[in-house]
């Protein structure tokens, strides 16, 4: 028993050292959304640590105090039915903890799903992120450019990622900026985030999507707004336009490096939202759309 406890303590020690020296990605946020989740994670770790410590302490006391080798031969343990008071306590304490964490959970979930606090009035930059086996395509309708396997965004401006997939379900994840969301073929999901510090952040598809899954990653770069505008201008003066044939080639299964184009694929292959969506998900479009469903998503 002691050995095991020692082991657990050692593990906790190791984990705290690791968390201390070289911050783990999820606990090293660079934007308000990831910071909210990191805080929630720390709150839950501390709350849960209390429970683990209480249980382990009780266990050690029981095992140490009531071990057979310590008791006399003729000790006959008593018959004890449940005790209402004790049972009320062991129900009430977990209930209180669960209520506390439920509030934390619901509140923080609303927070990370909406535009971060303080940025509500700003005009968000919309970036479509679509996955195909095993790449990410980023389309900037406003700037009229498209990139593959890297995304650049301005700092301190709300970004709205609109996610969908050409193929299997994928999960869009930039751990230091926000949590994951699925990208699916028949609907568009959204992530709201803000990057507050310029830098390169690893991003990837976190949901298993077949053979090339392990390398289905991208780099998310946050630049200051001035640098971002400069980058956009640069693209427009250097990159080639994206044609439909070229985009179809890009969709072929495989890995590609980082690519840049002017124009977006949304012009000839719209995202599955609004009238192009596979299903209705509470949107207000009228029912005549039904006829379009079957045709809207055929991947050429």
């Amino acid at each position, binding site marked *: 028993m002691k050995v095991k406890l020692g082991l657990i303590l050692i593990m906790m020690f190791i984990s705290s050292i690791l968390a201390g020296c070289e911050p783990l990605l999820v606990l090293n946020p660079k934007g308000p959304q990831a910071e909210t989740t990191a805080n929630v994670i720390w709150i839950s770790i501390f709350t*849960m640590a209390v429970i683990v410590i209480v249980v382990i302490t*009780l266990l050690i006391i029981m095992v140490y105090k*009531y071990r057979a080798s310590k008791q006399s031969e003729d000790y006959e*343990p008593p018959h004890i039915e449940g005790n209402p008071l004790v049972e009320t306590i*062991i129900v009430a304490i977990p209930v209180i903890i669960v209520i506390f964490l439920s509030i934390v959970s619901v509140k923080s979930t609303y927070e990370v799903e909406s535009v971060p606090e303080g940025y509500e009035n700003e005009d968000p930059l919309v970036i479509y992120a679509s996955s195909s086996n095993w790449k990410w395509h980023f389309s900037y309708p406003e700037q009229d450019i498209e990139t593959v396997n890297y995304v650049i965004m301005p700092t301190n401006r709300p970004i709205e990622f609109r996610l969908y997939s050409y193929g299997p379900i994928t999960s869009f994840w930039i751990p230091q900026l926000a*949590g994951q969301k699925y990208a699916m073929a028949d609907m568009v999901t959204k992530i709201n985030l803000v990057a507050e510090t310029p830098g390169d952040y690893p991003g990837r598809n976190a*949901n298993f999507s077949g053979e090339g899954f392990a390398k289905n990653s991208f780099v998310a770069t946050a630049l200051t707004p001035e640098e971002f505008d400069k980058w956009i201008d640069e693209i427009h003066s250097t990159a080639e336009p994206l044609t439909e044939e070229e985009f179809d080639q890009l969709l072929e299964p495989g890995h590609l490096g980082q690519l840049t184009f002017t124009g977006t694929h949304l012009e000839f292959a719209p995202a599955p939202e609004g009238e192009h969506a596979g299903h209705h998900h509470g949107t207000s479009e009228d029912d005549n759309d039904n006829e379009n469903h079957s045709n809207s998503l055929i991947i050429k």
Partner: protein
Amino acid sequence: MEFFERFAIPHPSPLIYASMVGIGLTVIAIVIGLTYFKKWGYLWREWLTTVDHKRIGLMYIISAILMLFRGGVDGIMMRLQTAVPDNTFLDAQHYNEVFTTHGIVMIIFMAMAFIIGMMNFVVPLQIGARDVAFPRLNAISFWLYFAGAMLFNISFVIGGSPDAGWTNYFPLAGTDFSQSVGVNYYMWALQISGLGTLMTGINFIVTILKMRAPGMTLMKMPMFTWSALITNVIIVFAFPVLTIALLMGTFDRQFGTHFFASTNGGMDMLWANLFWVWGHPEVYILILPAFGVYSEVIATFSSRNLYGYKSMVGSMVLISFMSFLVWVHHFFTMGHGPLVNGIFSVTTMAIAVPTGIKIFNWLLTMWKGKIRFTVPMLYSIGFIPLFTIGGVTGVMLAIASADYQYHNTMFLVAHFHNVIIPGVVFAMLAGLTYWWPKMFGFMLNERIGKWGFWFLSIGFCLAFFPMYITGLDGQARRMFTYSAETGFGPLNMVSFIGAALMAIAFILIVYNVYYSFRYAPRNVGQDPWDARSLEWATHNPVPEYNFAVTPEVNSSQAFWDSKKNNHQLFKEKRSKIHMPNNSGVPVIMAGFFFVFGFSFVFSIWIGVIIAALGIFACMAYRTFENDHGRYISLKEIEETEKKYGGAK
């Protein structure tokens, strides 16, 4: 020639060829061995055709241990592959197949078989019954499970393994992205063994409700029987969902329907929903019997009655109900908004309350007790802190906003292994050691058993705790490799070392069976553990008819009362005992199911039709069969009882 091409492995490797040779040699060795020792008749009469719940239970447990080996090898291969960055031991496709089969084998063919085997052996004894309510159906359940397991296990040498993960999400699992027959195997292996499980569910509910010994009211049932009852209720509600989901998946793959496609009105997330509507209750199907085992073991080795019997029962009933209300937490990241996620987050956390009650009740069962550190008790004591850690990380995952960061990462992998291994695997090893003398009439060696426990526990901690850290550092699950810059390397190496220690534990546990079989004394008597519940009121090993006289019961620990409080268990006089006859139909029918599944996997319709006719013929045979069972004569009972030295 074209006909045979479809059976080729789409993606062969030396490892697979070696396994083919290995399987071939093993089969030849078994056939030669059986023929040489003239054991075919024995095998057929005593095992293949048996309807005895004890033997069916043993066959389940033996199969489970074989599957533990298979799934364990998969697990070691995964840890070896990821032990160092950019490893090339397995390529992506093989790694994908390995983690898919690891999941299915461990959950469906190892853990499920282990718990159902344990229930089969113990439940009728604990309620003082002669057998389950429908012994023949029980045999069909086992053989369907076995047919499913074998079908699944031949996939990697004939036609290719499934490779879309054990969760098998569409459209990845659809024919667009998974062209080999692997996922067809998945569909049919689970379908066939799932039918067996559903029958088990019905069988045990009836057994427990209708066949308890006189005096055993529901609230006087031993806790393991209670857990079995609740588990089987969950099975009956949950498994039909899997049946239908698998059927829809089969239609999508083989008949071109679009239930789970992302075009033509299909919904890819429908599969995820249906899968987890079954899948989450499935988690509790696994863990509740484990809770039952711990309740028996902790009470016995603390020499105390179980604390808070009523709250134990109440919490299990509550868990069974709530287990159906939480499935969405498996895909909080699907994007259904904060309201839905908030609701399911709260229901998920709420399950921690009844589970917490159970943990405290076990602790209070030890209170004022007299704790003996036997192997089953060590597993139970190890279970409490480890399972608590697994449980609280579950609560952490239940916080929807935080789950956006944990989802699909090694953190999640660490969590569910942290509940399933100390929860289910420890419980099954505890239960196996505890009931071993009941099964075989001798004890397992305590010394080797304790070494096994320590290797398993320490190996477990080393293998899975580092994953919490790599998960928070961004290591997604199911990645076949990673680059050195990510920094995941050292901790993954620790995981591999832990996995190797667990493999040593498995070898020790198997060696213990061999060692104890050879050297353990056979005169263990009726009550080697100073136990409390009714199954210990009969001999070790248990005679065919279980109890010579049906016991009469007045509490949940009737055997203890008979030892300490002068309760008289056996009041009636002995008389002849009515028993069911053996039957070859279940195993033959399961053979047809195997052919049916195999033919369906490869779309060989003539085979499907013939096998289906065979299945119906078996059912028709049963319908018109005139079999009223047989009687064990009083003389035979007297002789058996005398042989056991039974004064009872």
